[in-house]
C-alpha cells in the first residue's frame, strides 16, 4: 500500500501528487477506503461506503493517461451527507422511515462534483433528517468525535465533519439549516461553510425546513472549502430559489464587527478563546469594532418556531405510501399514524408536533407570524451592521465537544447550542467556521471554532479573512 500523508493533504497537494505521478487516483482512493475500514467501526461517520469508488478513481487515471482534460476535483475522494441524493445509492436521511430508499436521481451539487471528477466515497451519518446538533438523533447510532470517541461529533452533519477530521475523506458535503456544518466542523477542528441561502442549488437535498436549507461544504482548509463551493454554486433551473453568483471586485475587508453578545451558558474557555481570536485578527491589521445586534437574543426562539413549522410541512410526504417504510394499521389513516409514529425518531416527532402547534389556528399569530416578523428584524439588523463593517466574528459553538448523552436528554438545552450559528441562517447570509485553537479536558485537546459572517453573497470576504486567520497562502 502506498504511503500518503493524509493529515496534511489538501486538494491542491493531491492534484500535484497525481499530476507528478507520486500516486494515482486509484491509490489515493484506496488509502481513504482503508482508512474508513480501520476507523469507521469506532467513529460511525459513514452509514454506507461505496466500495466501487475505486473504479471511478481508475477511470480518472485512465483519462489522465490518455491526456484528457481533467476537472478541478479529478480523483479527489469526497463524502456526502445522507440527506443528499446520489443516484442508485441508498439515501436514508439517517432515518428508519427511508430504510431501503434508493435515490432515483443525483442532486445538482452531486452532478457538479461528478463533472469536476470527484470520487464519491459514501453516505455520511447525520441527525435524522438533519434535525439535531450532536448527531445523536441518527437512527443508525451516533457519530463520534475523532479527538475523543466518548464525545459527540456535533451535528447535524457530524459524519461529514468527522470523516474529514479523521482522514476518511479529503472533503465532504453536508447541509445547513441552523449551523449543521459549522457546528460539527468546530467540534471536530475543521472548516465548514454555510453558503448564502440560494447560492447552492437545493435540488436533491431532502427538505427539512425549505426557507433555511442549504448544501454546505466541509474541508480541512479554507482554500479547499472555497474550491468545493466554487464548483457546486450557481443558478439551477431545478431550484427556483437558487441565485447567480455575484463576482465582486476582489475582497478587501478592513473592518470586522465584534457583537456585544454574550449569552448565558457560554463556556468561559470559549470566551477566552474568542477574545484571543479577536486579538489575533487585530494584529493581522483588521480594525475590530464593537457592534450592537440587539435582535440576536431572539434568534434561537425565532428559529425554533419557524423551523418546526416548516418541518411539519416538509415531513408530510413521509406517509408510508410513497417511499421507504410502511407499518400497517386498520385503515389508511392508521397506516399514516403508525408509520410516522414508529419510523420517525423522537426529535423528528417532537418538531413535527411543535410545528403543527405553532401553525394551528389559535396560535399562528402569536408564534409563527410573530417569528416571521422577528426573522425580518434580524435580517435588517445585519444589513444595517454591514453598512459599518465588512464582516462579523462570533464563536461557532458555546462549548467544546461534550460527552454522548451529556446534554441530549434535554431538547431545549440542545436547541440553545445553535445560539451563535442560527442568526446567519435566519438572515440568509453566508458564514464560515475556522479552527481557532483547542481547550484541554480529560487529557484531550478539544477543538473550538471561530465563526466569520459576511453580507449576502459575499463568501469571498469569508475566504479572504479565513485564510489570513489560519495563515493559509
Amino acid at each position: 500500500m502506498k504511503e500518503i500523508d493524509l493529515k496534511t493533504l489538501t486538494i491542491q497537494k493531491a492534484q500535484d501528487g497525481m499530476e507528478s505521478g507520486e500516486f494515482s487516483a486509484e491509490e489515493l482512493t484506496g488509502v481513504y477506503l482503508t482508512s474508513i475500514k480501520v476507523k469507521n467501526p469506532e467513529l460511525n461517520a459513514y452509514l454506507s461506503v461505496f466500495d466501487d469508488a475505486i473504479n471511478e478513481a481508475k477511470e480518472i487515471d485512465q483519462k489522465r493517461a490518455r491526456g484528457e482534460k481533467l476537472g478541478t476535483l479529478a480523483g479527489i475522494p469526497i463524502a456526502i451527507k445522507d440527506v443528499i441524493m446520489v443516484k442508485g445509492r441508498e439515501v436514508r436521511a439517517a432515518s428508519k422511515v427511508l430504510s431501503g430508499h434508493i435515490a432515483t436521481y443525483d442532486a445538482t451539487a452531486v452532478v457538479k462534483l461528478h463533472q469536476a471528477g470527484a470520487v464519491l466515497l459514501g453516505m455520511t451519518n447525520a441527525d435524522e433528517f438533519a434535525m439535531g446538533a450532536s448527531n445523536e438523533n441518527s437512527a443508525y447510532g451516533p457519530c463520534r468525535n475523532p479527538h475523543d470517541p466518548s464525545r459527540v461529533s456535533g451535528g447535524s452533519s457530524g459524519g461529514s465533519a468527522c470523516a474529514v477530521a479523521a482522514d476518511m475523506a479529503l472533503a465532504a458535503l453536508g447541509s445547513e439549516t441552523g449551523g449543521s456544518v459549522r457546528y460539527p466542523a468546530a467540534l471536530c477542528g475543521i472548516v465548514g461553510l454555510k453558503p448564502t441561502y440560494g447560492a447552492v442549488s437545493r435540488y436533491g437535498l431532502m427538505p427539512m425546513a425549505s426557507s433555511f436549507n442549504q448544501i454546505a461544504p466541509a474541508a480541512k482548509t479554507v482554500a479547499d472549502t472555497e474550491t468545493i463551493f466554487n464548483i457546486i454554486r450557481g443558478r439551477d433551473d431545478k431550484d427556483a430559489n437558487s441565485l447567480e453568483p455575484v463576482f465582486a471586485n476582489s475582497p478587501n475587508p478592513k473592518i470586522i464587527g465584534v457583537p456585544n453578545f454574550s449569552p448565558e451558558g457560554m463556556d468561559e474557555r470559549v470566551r477566552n478563546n474568542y477574545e484571543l481570536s479577536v486579538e489575533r485578527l487585530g494584529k493581522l491589521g483588521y480594525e475590530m469594532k464593537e457592534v450592537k445586534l440587539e435582535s440576536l437574543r431572539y434568534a434561537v426562539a425565532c428559529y425554533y418556531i419557524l423551523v418546526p413549522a416548516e418541518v411539519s410541512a416538509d415531513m408530510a410526504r413521509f406517509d408510508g405510501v410513497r417511499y421507504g417504510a410502511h407499518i400497517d394499521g386498520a385503515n389508511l389513516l392508521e397506516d399514516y399514524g403508525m408509520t410516522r409514529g414508529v419510523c420517525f425518531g423522537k426529535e423528528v416527532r417532537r418538531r413535527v408536533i411543535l410545528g403543527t402547534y405553532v401553525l394551528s389556528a389559535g396560535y399562528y399569530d402569536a408564534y409563527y407570524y410573530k417569528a416571521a416578523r422577528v426573522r425580518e428584524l434580524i435580517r435588517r439588523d445585519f444589513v444595517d451592521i454591514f453598512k459599518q463593517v465588512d464582516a462579523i466574528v462570533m464563536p461557532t459553538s458555546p462549548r467544546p465537544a461534550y460527552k454522548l448523552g451529556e446534554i441530549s436528554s434535554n431538547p431545549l438545552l440542545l436547541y440553545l447550542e445553535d445560539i451563535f450559528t442560527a442568526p446567519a441562517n435566519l438572515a440568509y447570509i453566508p458564514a464560515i467556521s475556522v479552527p481557532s485553537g483547542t481547550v484541554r479536558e480529560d487529557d484531550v485537546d478539544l477543538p473550538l471554532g471561530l465563526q466569520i459572517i459576511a453580507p449576502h453573497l459575499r463568501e469571498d470576504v469569508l475566504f479572504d479573512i479565513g485564510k489570513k486567520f489560519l495563515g493559509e497562502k
Partner: protein
Amino acid sequence: MAELARIKMPDNELEELCGQLDEILGYVSEVQRADVSSVPKHILPPLRNVFREDGEAHEHGIFTEAIMANVPSSEGGYVKVKKILEK
C-alpha cells in the same frame, strides 16, 4: 396535536413530550417581547418569475420504474392504498 400531525405515539411518551413542549414553548415565547413595529405587517420578498416555458421537462416515463421501486405497495404501475370511503 399528535393526531393532527398523523403521528401515533404511546401514552407514556406523550406525557414526556408534553413536558418538553411546555418548556420549549415557554422559551420560544420570548419572541413575543420583540418590538417588530418597524417591520411591515406583510413582508414581501423581491418577486421574480421562476416558471419555465411550457413543455415536457423530460421524456415521459423515464423515472417511473425507479420511483415505483421505492413504493411500499404497488400494482400495475400504480401506488396501492387502502380504500378511504366506507360503504
